[in-house]
């Protein structure tokens, strides 16, 4: 993609003025912040993952997805880069090369991909009817009943996660990982992928604790890990966090700005339409001009002795 952080700062520079003027965006940030205690998440340690695909199998079973043609034990799927789709909400991809500097004996890095459950999800902001919502603990969940199928969420998602059942005639759905939300909702139980992981490369827990855990791992093994928790600030922060030991772009982690895009659009929207003030103002002005012109017209008409 050729994106880098510098470019993004400059990209957002013109917005900064707009945003600074917009008190509402701060309010929205507060919402995210105030629920910090309740946020759950998962920490994925890519240096530990062994590519067994148990998480895929667990996800498949929990969500009652169709069984794939190739069994989960078949490692030939690693030959191609896969993306989450309608029949697999999470996929593990293989990237050749050892996962970190101190793991020379490993020849490949495995990285799991699924919905990141952003703290400030663009898809939720984008959804026209609120079919995508963010549950209290951070899971981004989907209600197919009110979805109209506009696929704007797919445009909005910076991670390109939601997929669509294009082959359905009447009831296509947006499919994505929903964090096994029936269980993650208050119970503290692992999502199926984290529960299935044999070596706890995926750890489920409170986001704040996971961040501490990630920091302590980096501190303990500074050679192994890149000093960056992927997802801590990316795109406003995500519930899923990644630890890694190689360049991000080598292992399919997108370089993303720390700025959350919905803050831009919502700021624009809510500034322009705040209390409908600007539309009313425009309406009034135009009405005034119209009335003025009408009066002029009538005077002219009256002088001509005509009338309309």
């Amino acid at each position, binding site marked *: 993609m050729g994106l880098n952080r510098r470019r993004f700062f400059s990209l957002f520079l013109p917005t900064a003025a707009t945003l600074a003027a917009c008190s509402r965006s701060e309010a929205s940030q507060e919402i995210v912040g105030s629920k910090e205690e309740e946020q759950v998440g998962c920490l994925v340690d890519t240096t530990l993952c062994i590519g067994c695909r148990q998480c895929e199998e667990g996800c498949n079973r929990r969500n009652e997805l169709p069984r794939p043609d190739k069994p989960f034990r078949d490692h030939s799927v690693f030959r191609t880069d896969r993306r989450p789709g309608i029949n697999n909400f999470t996929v593990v991809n293989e990237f050749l090369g050892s996962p970190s500097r101190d793991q020379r004996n490993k020849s490949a890095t495995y990285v799991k991909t699924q919905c990141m459950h952003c703290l400030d999800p663009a898809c939720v902001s984008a959804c026209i009817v609120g079919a995508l919502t963010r549950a209290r603990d951070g899971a981004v969940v989907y209600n197919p009943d009110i*979805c109209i199928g*506009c696929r704007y969420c797919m445009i909005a998602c910076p991670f390109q996660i939601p997929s669509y059942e294009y082959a359905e005639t009447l009831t296509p759905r947006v499919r994505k990982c929903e964090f096994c939300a029936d269980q993650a909702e208050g119970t503290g139980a692992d999502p199926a992928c984290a529960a299935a992981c044999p070596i706890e490369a995926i750890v489920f827990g409170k986001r704040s604790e996971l961040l501490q855990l990630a920091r302590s791992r980096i501190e303990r093994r500074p050679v192994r890990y890149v000093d960056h928790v992927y997802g801590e600030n990316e795109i406003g922060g995500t519930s899923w966090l990644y630890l890694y030991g190689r360049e991000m772009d080598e292992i399919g982690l997108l370089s993303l700005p720390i700025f959350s895009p919905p803050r831009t659009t919502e700021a624009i929207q809510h500034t322009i339409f705040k209390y409908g003030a600007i539309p009313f103002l425009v309406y009034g002005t135009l009405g005034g001009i119209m009335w003025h012109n009408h009066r002029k017209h009538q005077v002219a008409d009256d002088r001509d002795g005509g009338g309309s």
Partner: protein
Amino acid sequence: MSAHDTRCVRGSFFSPGTFALLAVMTLGGAFAFTRMLTNLQTVTNLTDAYPWGLWIAIDVACGVALAAGGFTTAALIEVFGNHKYRPLLRPAVLTAWLGYIFVGIGLMFDLGRYWNIWRPAFNWQGNSVLFEVGMCVMAYLFVLTVEMSISFLDGLRTRVEEGSPGARILNRLERPLTLLRRIVRTVMPLFVIAGVVLSCMHQSSLGALMVIAPTKMCSLWYTPVLPLLFLLSAIMVGFPMVVMESLIVSRSLGREPEMDLLSPLAKIIPWFIAGYGAVKILDLVVRGSAVEFFDTPGHMIAFLVEMVLCLLVPFVLLMLKPVRESSGWLLFSSLLIIAGVVLNRVNVFLVAYEPPFPGKGYFPSVGEIAVTLGLIATIMFLYRVFIFLFPILPKHETSAAIPLRTPPTYTPLKTSTAWTFRGVAIGLMLIFSVLYAFIHQEAVSGDIRATEWVESVRPVVAESTGLNPAEHAGRPEGYQRVYILSSRLLDDLDNFYGPARFNHVTHDEWTGGDCAPCHHRFSMDSDDRIGIDLNEFHDELEIHLGGPCASCHDMGSITTQRCDSCHWLANEEDDPSRLGLKGAYHRQCIGCHEGARKTGAPLACIGCHHPVTPDHRDLVAVGEDVDVQGVVRECVRCHATSTQDVLKSAHWNWAGHSPEVGGYENSASLGLNTMVNSYMFGTGPNGEYCAACHIGIGPLEGRIANRDPETVDCLICHDTTGTYKKKIGGGGQPVDGLDLQRVGRTVGRPSRAKCGECHFYSDGSANIKHGDLEPALADPPDDFDVHMGRYNLLCQDCHTTRQHKIAGMSMSAPAVEGRVHCSRCHSDTPHGISGAYSRHLDDHLRSISCQVCHIPHIARETPTRTSIDWQKAEAYGPVPLTDRGLPAWPERSGVETWVRNLVPEYRWYDGTRRIKVLGESIDPRSTVYLNQPQGDKRNPRALISAFKTHRAIQPYDTDNKVLLIPKLWEGFWQHFNLEVAIRDGMADSGMGYSGSYDFVQTVQYMGIHHEIVPAKDALGCHDCHAADAVDCRRCHSSIRGHELNGLGHAVYPEVENRIDFKALGYEDDPARIGGRFFIQLGRGTPPS
């Protein structure tokens, strides 16, 4: 807005152009119909990477933009009072109205759940830009309809006046229609302004749509001021649309172009272009460094075309007066601007959209293009319909430039009534606006995000209560060596694999006795969940850790902390960084196993775990009266590759690569059809009997070669009911009266009993052949076989299976598909690190196979046959048959010898053997070895190994000097006439027979590998070595009077001379004279 300067168009409706439109509409309609009947995938090229395509970019985005002529013209005339342009108003509003209607229709095709399109009107999501667009478009469509209604009402009235068809009915409605016309006329100004405001709102919001995807957009187009750019470009394209539409209509109807109106109108356009262009360029300049101009040439070209050709060129052209006054040039310039806006929308929505994982990319499909063209054609067609039906275009006869001042037909409403209606309209608008504004604020403050439905739809499942860490589920009482690593903590939620069996002793050996890698903490108290670190503890005592724990500690008395007393659940609150039980086990295992790759530590999941067979009850769809081949067809439906694997296996072919048979090392031709033995002689004439075991259905002959997947009998191995059996001599068919539906639905991993059904009964009767494979092994007591009894291992735990090729070697069958080695689990130094004698025991492994000491006896429950004399059998005559069809010779006949608790024979064996194949000539003067283990004392690879020998006196052809194959099944066993049996048998085998036979002594060896006793029951030193030969003091001169406790005696004193060392090539007991790799014994000499 008077009605009398506009007229319905008269004349011929149809023209060649109309038919062309109809053709395009039909084509587009066909594709649209297909999309509605099938799905998006069939018609479009949309993917997960590109969820929006041509339909959104053209039908919706361009549709909205190009309908801007409606509000710009309305503003120009009604708001800014330029009444001379009034003739252009109605066509412009009609274009906008049709445009918006078709935005909606186009959207219907694109929406996945188009039947839910009404949802946004009720499920308000104020944060969504798209919601903003949707609401405004809906509202504006209503405003446009109100604006259009004047034309419609006028049209209806004209019909009444002219007495057109339908006038009679309309006549009755004249009063309400007139009233409605008057009301609409009264409130119209309010709506006109509302229309302008709404247009500004959603034209800009449309631009804000893509602002949410900054990371996916090309920087040439992505800017936070996209909404402003969209609004300005929409205003810019409004008048060119009016110009274009007016000029095309004039041409189409053969009228004079309204140049007197259009030329002055065109004079305004450059100002808008300049405004839009200025903002766009300013934006580029401000973003400056962020814009990557030359990164993607394709994007740069698209951008330059949009900016130069479609913005700069028309700007320059329209500045020129001649251009503005020429209808052709004016049309050209307008078209350029329109193309520029279309290109801009396509660029923003399609070209600039660069998903991070583009997949195969996006280009619109034929269907998408056809539907889009069809929609455009429909708009044009309907435009023509409306101008023919309703008074929209100015009267043709009069020059449109002179506004007619005809007296109004309608009297205005009374002032008070008019104000009432205006008040009501204003009130409704206010209510809507206030509500809308309110919702916006609510959305921002977060209440809209409340997710009640999540709580209502998805039940919260109560989580199980915690497990007492002291309860280690699945850990059998008293099992010291093998732990079943299974607990609710491990099995929770996802149990795809069976529990691992962790062999503590083996791992003890691999780690060299260092407990610390696993037991890094221990505690004296079971309530202490933290314990102390082994390293720290020893450091404090200034003890250097490094050697085996057992070198200091008595491992029998020391207690270690249970793993799950610390490692319980992952990410617990008291220490989030501590691993859960599953993670602790696996990470410890996998790390070591990867490091110990060379030693053969298993790395795959199934190296330690049995995969759990899914419940096949719902998967196997067979009827109640299914036959066995029906079940197999059902198996093949999913397991096609497995069937193909079976067809390549030795179990199917009864032949295969024979690397261990001397002279046939590189051959795969040896198999049971080349075999000759002393049990059933050969498969040729007795094949039907053998077919009761072969893993196929149907007659044996031809079946193997045909390789028909549907003749593979999956159930013979995978039946778990224990009822599935084959008829003896029944052509491989199962016995009658089976519930095959049940058998098929309960398939699973083969059990020991299932393998044993063939292998315990090789050559017809229980344990007759192998000696170490008897039916008791299906469920043996602990000390009968330590693997199968105590640890309940399945056959395939040792005989590892890959693609239905099963490891293992038999002395009688040549094919090998992998070997089984004790060392896979027990390492090369298996005798433990804690015992005083382990080194001496391990030294034995250079010359003795494990089986010699650990299988003291075979046939411990069911006797095995060690000899048969066919000469006596022929002479003895008919005897009754057993239930498996074999003759039961009485013991006194001396035909057979059956032995229980057989002591094996010991021979050198280097892993290879020589065999006699069918038709190979023999020397009848000496004993014929049907198979003969190779190796002797001088061969360093040879080990003393345990065998069962089967001796026979069997017939041979005195002239041809070959062993004969009598027909036993439906032959000798029925008529007991060996002469006839030989003749039939040799004919069936396709071999010549001279007619005379005699008897020769043969020997056949069978390897001994099963019925391994627990260590305490294995041979002691004195079982093989002379009592005076084993003495520690011979080497350890300092030791006085040390007892070889537990080992220094004969465990089986009743067996004398278990190993004849002289026969094996030793001059004397090697304990006395030294082993074959030692020239002499160590430092000491045996006491005299």
